[in-house]
């Protein structure tokens, strides 16, 4: 980032809430270093109130996003991939620095992350056929089932894989029509903030995705307890707190994705496993008569 004789202009890394980039209302920041411990940036450390604001934003955006046509959602997600491609180099640098990867491995991770958006973009208008359908009930009724989004989903993103892992947990939540409040990797938040800039400049409506840099251990409790959160993905939760978060989530019967014992290989084909937990099935009956 540093040119030959020019002093670079550094970026201030902020939160992404309701389509805007606020600092944490708490005023807190924390130091982010690269894999070797060198200073990279100060990131905003989101607070309970930032989480609350993010949930309000996600709830506000839900009706429009879930009500958009599947074709439209697919195009919006594809657009995210397009815009990411334009920032390919920046993502590579950030991933390499944060995760300590070689340039080629970082590039592979960024490529995979972009391709994952494309993959999910293609899913939006297939889910109805794959997960829904007409039910041949024993009576004079037309009866059909359709998958519908759960609502506002809190996502504790993976701690290790700062971009591919993040996209792998976020894109399925969006593809299914949910809106998201994401707590990024605590130690490797920078690609997430850059992703926020991509989202802000693509066609994703404000509030559909809200990205909070900070500590999943701290924010997880507030999100798990929050009565206006409908589901929570605990993938990036600290293992010693996950059970507690799940218990808190039970208070309002949230849909919960439990954390894996170790972070999975994010390059593997995810199938439907990350979409179905945040889909509801709605079944509609109507008589057939003259």
């Amino acid at each position, binding site marked *: 980032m540093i040119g030959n004789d020019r002093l670079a202009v550094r970026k201030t890394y902020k939160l992404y809430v309701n389509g805007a980039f606020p600092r944490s209302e708490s005023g807190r920041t924390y130091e982010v270093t690269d894999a070797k411990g060198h200073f990279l940036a100060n990131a905003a450390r989101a607070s309970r109130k930032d989480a609350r604001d993010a949930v309000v934003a996600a709830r506000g955006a839900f009706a429009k996003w879930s009500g958009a046509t599947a074709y439209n959602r697919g195009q919006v997600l594809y657009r995210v991939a397009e815009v990411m491609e334009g920032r390919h180099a920046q993502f590579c640098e950030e991933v390499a620095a944060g995760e300590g990867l070689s340039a080629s491995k970082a590039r592979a991770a960024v490529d995979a992350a972009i391709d994952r958006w494309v993959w999910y973009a293609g899913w939006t208008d297939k889910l109805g056929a794959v997960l829904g359908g007409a039910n041949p009930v024993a009576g*004079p*009724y037309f009866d059909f089932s359709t998958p519908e989004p759960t609502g506002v989903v809190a996502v504790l993103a993976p701690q290790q894989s700062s971009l591919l892992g993040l996209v792998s947990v976020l894109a399925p939540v969006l593809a299914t029509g949910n809106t998201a409040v994401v707590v990024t990797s605590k130690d490797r938040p920078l690609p997430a903030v850059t992703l926020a800039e991509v989202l802000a400049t693509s066609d994703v409506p404000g509030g559909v995705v809200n990205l909070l840099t900070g500590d999943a251990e701290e924010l997880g409790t507030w999100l798990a307890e929050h009565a206006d959160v409908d589901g929570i993905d605990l993938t990036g939760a600290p293992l010693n707190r996950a059970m507690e978060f799940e218990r808190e989530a039970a208070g309002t019967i949230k849909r919960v994705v439990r954390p894996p014992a170790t972070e999975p290989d994010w390059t593997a084909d995810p199938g439907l496993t990350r979409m179905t937990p945040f889909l509801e099935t709605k079944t509609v009956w109507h*008589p*057939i*008569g*003259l």
Partner: protein
Amino acid sequence: MTHVLDPDALSDDARALSVPLPPYRDVTRSDSAFRAFLHGLPGVDQVGAEARVAQLGTRSIKTTSKAWAIDTAISMVDLTTLEGADTPGKVRSLAAKAMRPDPTDPSCPRVAAVCVYGDLAGVAREALGDSGVHVAAVATAFPSGRASRAVKLADVRDAVQNGADEIDMVIDRGAFLSGRYLDVYEEIVAVKEACGEAHLKVILETGELVTLDNVRRASWIAMLAGGDFIKTSTGKVSPAATLPVGLVMLEAVRDFRVATGRQVGFKPAGGIRTTKDAVKHLVLINETVGRDWLDPGWFRFGASSLLNDLLLQRQKLRTGHYSGPDHVSVD
């Protein structure tokens, strides 16, 4: 006998009658107003109506209730013969049966009426005398109704003159299905006038109207036009008196009385052959419109073979054992 009339020339009396009861005075002021009114009636969901009658069909009628139901049903029968081969002899034997359905049991009630073609109404009248059994005659170019209005009205007058005190007319289904509701209405008004003192039953021929929405609209046309009874069918078209049709027509007479204060009777006809069928209709009345209609003044069965099954069941209840066709009379 026939009278040649100008079909458009309603008498002053009929014009007065042709204005429906409040609050419906203005619904027949034009074709479009009438159409808007009829299409503004609540729709009928066929599946829901069928489910309702199926549920009522599970009512289990036992012992004293069953005895009451059978006697009530007998007293509600319009004992009918409507064949080209009908003769005075056939009508006389039917009349005899109508007055004493079970010759072995004087406690058996007589039926409500004998129903015949108009030319035989006189025979029926003579045979029935002052028994209290009514003479019903079908008219208006029964069963198709395809004749000029003049002929239909002449048909009615002829039947009344021959001694019928009840007229079973058919509506013009062609006019109904082509949306000429006012024509259907005015014809009923004219027939009502031609009936004079005779009671008018208006046959909708629901098997040709097909949908339950149409059944509801036709019921309202007939009631607004002054029909004393609405009747499902001629018996010449299938399906005839189905239970869902009965449900919708009973809802119509119920709602009409609530709105206007005038009670209209209901007569299912055609396809009701067994005691079980008859009891299902009685249950339907009981739970849809209530006891006010559980009376031959307000409810009739148009049937022929039904009576014998009612008599067999009646014998079974009385004697405790089953019987057979040789224990009731061949009609």
